[in-house]
């Protein structure tokens, strides 16, 4: 069985997986990082979004072996101790979540957008979140949170 090594939230991690082990299962089941969620079988909901080498991908549609050697950031890697990341803080401030199931993927996707554009328009945010589904909020406060979070990040994570 293959061994994978990757940097996850700044720490060197490794494990023995099957070829078919998905990155999300490696994160959740091997490393216990259960902040990354699985909300669908069809690669459409975005609850599983993490960063691989700096860009957002769906960890349910990536094999663990494909991420061998990569630099991975999950929702657990954003906060600095008790200090929330500016994007997390913006979601709290603007009430960008209700049940919270979609939130880890929303935040990871939003941080990728903010890294590219520090002042996205409402339209830009809605387009960018095409691959992140929320069953609760109606998106309105999520969009406000992402715009505020991007501005608070000021072009850097």
């Amino acid at each position: 069985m293959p061994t994978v090594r990757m940097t996850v939230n700044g720490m060197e991690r490794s494990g023995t997986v099957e070829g078919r082990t998905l990155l999300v299962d490696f994160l959740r089941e091997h490393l216990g990082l259960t902040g990354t969620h699985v909300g669908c079988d069809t690669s459409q909901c975005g609850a599983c979004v993490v960063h691989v080498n700096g860009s957002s991908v769906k960890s349910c549609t990536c094999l663990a072996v494909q991420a061998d050697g990569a630099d991975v950031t999950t929702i657990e890697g954003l906060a600095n101790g008790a200090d929330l990341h500016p994007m997390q803080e913006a979601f709290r401030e603007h009430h960008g979540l209700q049940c919270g199931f979609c939130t880890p993927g929303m935040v990871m996707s939003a941080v990728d957008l903010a890294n590219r554009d520090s002042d996205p328009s409402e339209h830009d945010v809605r387009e960018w979140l095409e691959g992140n589904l929320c069953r609760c909020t109606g998106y309105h406060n999520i969009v406000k949170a992402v715009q505020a979070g991007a501005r608070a990040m000021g072009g850097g994570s």
Partner: protein
Amino acid sequence: MNDFTYHAPTSLDDALAALRGAEGGTLIAGGQSLLPIMKLNLAAPTDVVSLAGVAGLDGISDDGDSVTVGAMCTHAQVAGSAAVQGRIPALAAMADGIGDAQVRNAGTIGGSLAHNDPAADYPAACVALGATIVTDRREIASDDYFQGMFMTALEDDEIITAVRFPVPARAAYAKFANPASKYAVAGVMVADGPAGVRVAVTGASGDGVFRMAGMEAALGGSFSAEAVAGIGVSSDGMLSDTAAGAEYRAHLVAVMAKRAVEACG
């Protein structure tokens, strides 16, 4: 999903050897079509051979009369490329409209063309622009490459290495997207290029991408939205599914064609 042996070759020769040595081997590029299919057990390869580490499949170059895109270029790279934006903006815009940000960060042009989903966007761009599909062993004209739903001219062990797009005088793509997946319910690419005026349609037919000869002739005479406005599109052979019935799809093809011509300016 069934388990399989994973290979991570670093050269085309090693990738071909791994593929040929396997009982039921398949390539993986971005995994954005293959993995969803494997999760549904619609594909169960014994061996999966990754192209990610294979040298020479990346990069986008402006060759003067054409732009060449490496097979492993992601949709996001094509959308963000200065060469593509500058020479064939319609292609950059098309790539920017594929799926969602995460699909565009992982999915590749080579994977999209090898898969040839009847609702994928790239087939329309390739046929309208008269692109050439470059593989490890030959060059294939787009007109010969697409052979119906999920069918291509590729041999079992053939690897796409790049796609060469002639630079058109003008081109535009208009898509009526499925609201859930963003795949084309009907997508039309219109291009006025070295191969003449071409109109290629994706998403609408069960046979995959096709050209609209009547519209091409009309636009050859007068390149204007009015020229295509009067041309009826038959619903014969159009797909009918939960997104749209055959009649509605035929109507959408006419509307998208008109919008694409208008967008050509």
